[in-house]
């Protein structure tokens, strides 16, 4: 085998890349085509339909045949949709690698959105003569709320020594409840235009680069944190063997507090993007996100028993989940089946991973 290929296969996430590639090929082959009208740019920068001459000399509008999956708009849409879950999944990966779980990310997302929205709304669409201040305070409120939520989770888990499942399950209800009470269940909108213009900035054929760039940055930050920083090493150590980590002088409680702050922060970043993208927030936002985010982390190779996983892996996991749910639309499968399919994929991914671990273990004992 040529060595670059071998080193690619050795690469931890190569399996996920292969799955993504296979899914992409499958979707491209089975998606079929769609006829879309052809446009051209006019001299003054506008768009107008292109016409051709038909067989009987008439002017008829021109169409192009595009693959339903493999076209620029669809891929741009897929990238944007993935970025929200992927950003949160990076924070979740850190928590899961440390042997914890955070069920409250969807609610943190909602509460942070709503708090940010209320501040932005206060400054209004015109920004009360000071849009820069309004947007800055809005961002501060959104991220600050998310960090406070993380502090709430981590603080209670450390102080009460209660399993994170319980604390974050409680937080899931409490935080969404606060969001509901604060907004009286109403949607909050009417923000200074700057934020929306920035987040919705598009390049080329409708590609929203800002959420995508945020996803890339968060992934790189997560990757650096986990693989290059001492704190990341401690996360793996605690998830791998908490007692040995304690015996090695690691301040386990401090690390645990930190990971829930990180998880809160990534939910806050996703919330911020949604504020800009949708221009409004309600307490019902992000319902069920925790499941998508945990599913992305698990499909991406993070082990729920701790000690294993990577930032890049979970982002690829998020992409796989998103490809499947948009694939369901593209292939024209009944939408009602989407939950069944995604659930099956999550279970299959874990079974496959267990099988892989078993294989590795067998190789290890045979090598001896």
């Amino acid at each position: 085998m040529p060595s670059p290929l071998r080193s690619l296969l050795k690469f931890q996430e190569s399996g996920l890349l292969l799955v993504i590639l296979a899914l992409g090929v499958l979707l491209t082959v089975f998606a079929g085509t769609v006829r879309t009208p052809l446009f051209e740019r006019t001299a003054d920068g506008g768009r107008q339909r292109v016409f051709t001459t038909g067989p009987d000399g008439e002017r008829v509008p021109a169409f192009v045949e595009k693959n339903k999956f493999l076209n620029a708009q669809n891929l741009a849409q897929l990238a944007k949709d993935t970025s929200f879950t992927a950003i949160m999944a990076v924070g979740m990966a850190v928590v899961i690698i440390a042997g914890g779980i955070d069920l409250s990310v969807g609610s943190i997302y909602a509460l942070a959105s709503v708090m940010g929205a209320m501040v932005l709304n206060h400054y209004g669409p015109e920004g009360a003569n000071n849009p820069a201040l309004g947007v800055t305070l809005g961002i501060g409120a959104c991220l600050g709320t998310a960090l406070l939520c993380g502090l709430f989770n981590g603080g209670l888990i450390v102080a009460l020594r209660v399993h994170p499942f319980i604390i974050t399950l409680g937080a899931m209800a409490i935080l969404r409840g606060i969001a509901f009470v604060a907004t009286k269940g109403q949607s909050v909108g009417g923000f200074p235009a700057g934020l929306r213009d920035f987040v919705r900035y598009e390049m080329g054929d409708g590609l929203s680069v800002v959420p995508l760039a945020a996803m890339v940055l968060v992934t790189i930050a997560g990757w650096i944190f986990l693989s290059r920083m001492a704190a990341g090493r401690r996360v793996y150590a605690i998830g791998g063997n908490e007692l040995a980590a304690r015996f090695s002088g690691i301040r386990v409680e401090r690390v645990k507090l930190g990971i829930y702050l990180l998880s809160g922060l990534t939910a806050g970043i996703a919330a911020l993007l949604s504020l800009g993208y949708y221009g409004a927030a309600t307490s019902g936002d992000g319902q069920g996100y925790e499941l998508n985010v945990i599913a992305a982390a698990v499909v991406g190779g993070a082990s729920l028993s701790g000690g294993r996983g990577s930032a890049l892996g979970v982002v690829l996991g998020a992409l796989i989940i998103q490809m499947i749910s948009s694939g369901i639309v593209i292939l024209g499968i009944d939408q009602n089946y989407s939950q069944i399919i995604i659930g099956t994929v999550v279970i299959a991914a874990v079974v496959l991973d267990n099988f892989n671990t078993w294989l590795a273990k067998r190789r290890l004992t045979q090598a001896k």
Partner: protein
Amino acid sequence: MTAFLQFQAITKRFPGVLALDGVGFTVERGTCHALIGENGAGKSTLGKILAGVQTADGGEIRLDGKVITPDSPLAARELGIAMVHQELAFCPNLSVAENLCLGDLPRRAGFVDRAELRKRAKAMLATIGADIDPDVIIGTLSTGREQLVQIAAAVGTGAKVIVMDEPSSSLSAAETAELFRLVRELKSRGITLIYVSHRLEELFALCDNITVLRDGKHVATERIADTTPQRVVTQMIGRELLFATPNHLAKSLGEERLKVASLASPGKFSGIDLSVRAGEIVGVAGIVGAGRSEVVEAIFGLDAAATGYITVKGAALPCGSRDAALAAGLGLVPEDRKRQGLVLGLNNRENTSLAALPALTSLGWVKRATERELAQRYTSRLRVKAPSLETITAGLSGGNQQKIALAKWLARSCDVLLIDEPTRGVDVGAKAEIYQLLDELACEGKALLVVSSELPELIGLCRRIVVMRNGGIAGEVQRADFSEAALMRLMAGVAAA
């Protein structure tokens, strides 16, 4: 002898260690047969093989002349073999009655028949004369009473052979007396008992025959009446030391590095006074449960309930603060490397640098080149045999894992090392290397406190040995007076013969 139970050439291999090496002997029907040996001699392993908890790699077992293969606890039970375990063998959240009938719950129309359940459990408890309420939750019983339930379960399911693994290790005096009465009672009913223990006086009071194992090999099987405790001790030891006189003994000692005064922890130990000087190796001996590991963990600040005075290099150390202990230059190589010592899923480089991480970090970043160099230096100094620094530690043999667990603290350059069981589950070659390393460390002026269950190890290495018994210090022996017999007598609290 009328052979009831025969072991023939039983062999059991664990990664890196030959736990049993062709062991063969016979057990008579209706006797209490003692199985004795030092830690790691293979006595518990043999008991577990008979009870189907582990399976042998070679050899055969005959029961009443027929070859049997107890490959699971259930298969063993069907053959009439049961085991009474040291630790909890039941579901602690269920009642005595439910646990006793767990394999075959009486049912009526799909519901548990509670009256029948209670009746059966009462009958089982009555056969051994145990006065235990069948409705009590198992978890609330003392270890001694829980053992009685285990015995009732064994007798109730028609066991002909009962293996008892260190049954008295956590019993009070009254409970032990009750256990002895019961053992005699079972014997009179024709039940054969295999009694695994290293408490000599107990075996001589209770058993008919005795088998001594050493390093996985059979040494002797004799009638208790034909032997003496002294003779058994010699049979248990009887091995040459693995190394010559260590070099550190020739050097002069430095200042006092660690001083412990009246250290105590409720329910674990009390009145512990110790001191270790620079360049000195002090041993801590004692049988399992004497409180040795608890003491070193308390010195390392892992016991929040500990009280007393700990002084490191002349400066007082607060009790129960691991961070202060680390800052003072203490390191602890714990007893159980898999559970406490290593993160097995990490690789060798990461495990070696785990305790030294603060020194390898600048602004939160791990200095990778420095880390690799440090890990390389200590893994090669300890001659760790592994494909590379990036090999996952779980894949190494016991000896190499233990070396990594040691390397971790050397990488942090600790001045005072607390080492709990330096060579447990380690093969002979690695043992010699670890001894040599500990000697070198002492020569470099480090202070070492070594806890071990293997007396030859302490006798070979140490300048002084502190002996613990029942959570207190039973005595201290200087090198000139070292002898296994003397130490063992102190450990067991037996007067000199």
